[in-house]
């Protein structure tokens, strides 16, 4: 029993990270119908930004309270990564809007390769360790919960609440939803559609950057290829939850996190990805639009 709950805690932690990344996939898909293949690398970029910020903080101030360091890392990583994605969208994706459907996808694949190579060249091809930041572990009813896990789940919860509020209760969120539902009508009402799409890319990247920071803190290392696997997992989470649905992305992320930890705990770890994707396949057979997704509606 304790072992099981332990796995739930681990799965929830992992799932939070996937959920944060998955939101970027689902929002971009929702608003322009594009699978942003480079989003995983944006996540990785976020992790590297956080690493660089931390190393800078250490070399400038020597010791620095961890809470403050994390806060600065998160904010700077969000800004930097958001800026990156803003530039990428403007330069690489926007000019292709309105061309054939596969063009942006292919460009995004190219962008994914370009980003990981860029980090490989500038940061080196080897694992980059981060000096250990948080190491406390608490024992609660025989379950060990690390401070890292608490931070990850809390930060995710806070961000998701802010994010949910923005999307549902602010003019910006309304503009995003309107653009998603009928781009032409949104423009007729004075919404700057291109700007709204840009902001969506920035928001997705900012959440991915937080995920990257959490990932870095949790595992203690990062490498230029780290965008790929978590990226694919998060994309799977978005599809599982119902692509285009924000609650779906979070739910899908947590489900995948749980499936992975539970499978690794009770069965052979080598097959954990097989298990994840099998469950995805089964869900899609019975509910092709994902758990919380709506049936595909025609886009005008």
């Amino acid at each position, binding site marked *: 029993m304790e072992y099981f709950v332990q796995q739930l805690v681990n799965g929830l932690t992992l799932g939070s990270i996937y959920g944060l990344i998955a939101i970027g996939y689902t929002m971009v898909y929702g608003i322009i119908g594009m699978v942003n293949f480079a989003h995983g690398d944006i996540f990785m970029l976020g992790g590297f930004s956080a690493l660089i910020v931390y190393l800078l903080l250490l070399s400038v101030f020597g010791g620095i309270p961890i809470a403050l360091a994390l806060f600065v890392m998160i904010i700077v990583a969000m800004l930097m990564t958001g800026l990156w994605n803003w530039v990428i969208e403007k330069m690489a994706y926007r000019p292709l809007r309105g061309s054939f459907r596969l063009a942006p996808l292919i460009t995004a694949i190219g962008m994914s390769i370009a980003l990981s190579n860029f980090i490989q060249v500038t940061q080196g091809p080897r694992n980059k360790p981060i000096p250990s930041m948080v190491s406390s572990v608490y024992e609660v009813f025989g379950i060990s919960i690390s401070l890292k896990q608490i931070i990850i789940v809390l930060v995710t919860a806070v961000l998701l609440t802010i994010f949910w509020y923005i999307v549902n209760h602010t*003019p910006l969120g*309304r*503009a995003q*939803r*309107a653009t998603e*539902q*009928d781009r*032409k*009508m*949104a*423009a*007729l*009402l*004075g*919404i*700057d*559609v291109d700007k709204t799409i840009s902001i969506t890319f920035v928001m997705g990247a900012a959440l991915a950057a937080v995920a990257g920071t959490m990932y870095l803190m949790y595992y203690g290392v990062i490498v230029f290829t780290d965008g790929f696997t978590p990226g694919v997992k998060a994309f799977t989470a978005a599809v599982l939850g119902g692509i285009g649905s924000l609650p779906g992305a979070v739910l899908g992320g947590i489900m995948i996190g749980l499936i992975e930890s539970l499978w690794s705990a009770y069965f052979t770890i080598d097959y954990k990805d097989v298990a994840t994707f099998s469950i995805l396949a089964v869900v899609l057979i019975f509910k092709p639009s994902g758990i919380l997704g709506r049936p595909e*509606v025609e886009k005008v």
Partner: protein
Amino acid sequence: MSDMLLQVKAVETYYGNIRALGGVDVEVNKGEIVCMIGANGAGKSTLMMTICGSPQARTGSVTFDGQDITHMPTHEIARLRIAQSPEGRRIFPRMTVYENLQMGASLDNLKYFNEDVEKIFTLFPRLKERQAQRGGTLSGGEQQMLSIGRALMARPKLLLLDEPSLGLAPLIVKQIFAAIKVLNKEQGLTVFLVEQNAFAALKLSDRGYVMVNGKVTMSGSGKELLANPEVRAAYLEGGHH
């Protein structure tokens, strides 16, 4: 009265290689109600959308309040206070009625929202009852009311209505036309509308145009067009008055 608000001059609009408008001239003066009638596929909706820059005219020009808007992006045109209730109504299906109205008031960042939404609810009490319902689940007529209400929320200088009577019960059509007249008389709202319901539209309007195959073939005061034998034969006969 002859203060020109909208001028469409020799406009040609294409969909790919297909020419939908072949040199259209239309003028709307401040404070007027002007209508465009014409058969299916004549190009009426295309004209409405061309005024809003989506699609843009390939040749010719669109001038609003003295400003050339032919190549302006759609959202900037909207910011000049041209509001449209477009063909097909284009309600945001997964937003509530209330949110759809909020979208209409985006230009002023909801500054006059509370005040204006009450006016819309007085005009269409139905929308008030349904304000928490998702747009996509409204009936056709309710969507039409919402589309017009949403356009009015923008406090437009020029209101473009693409077949406002479509799908509405005759009584509601009467109400809407009466409401348009009131807005026009009391607030000086300028209206340019497209209608299949030619009789009601011409009666409401100060002036009218007839469009055939992407070209304006006739124009005149509402009364003149109503009396014109050609117009009667093509657009009014068989319709009950």
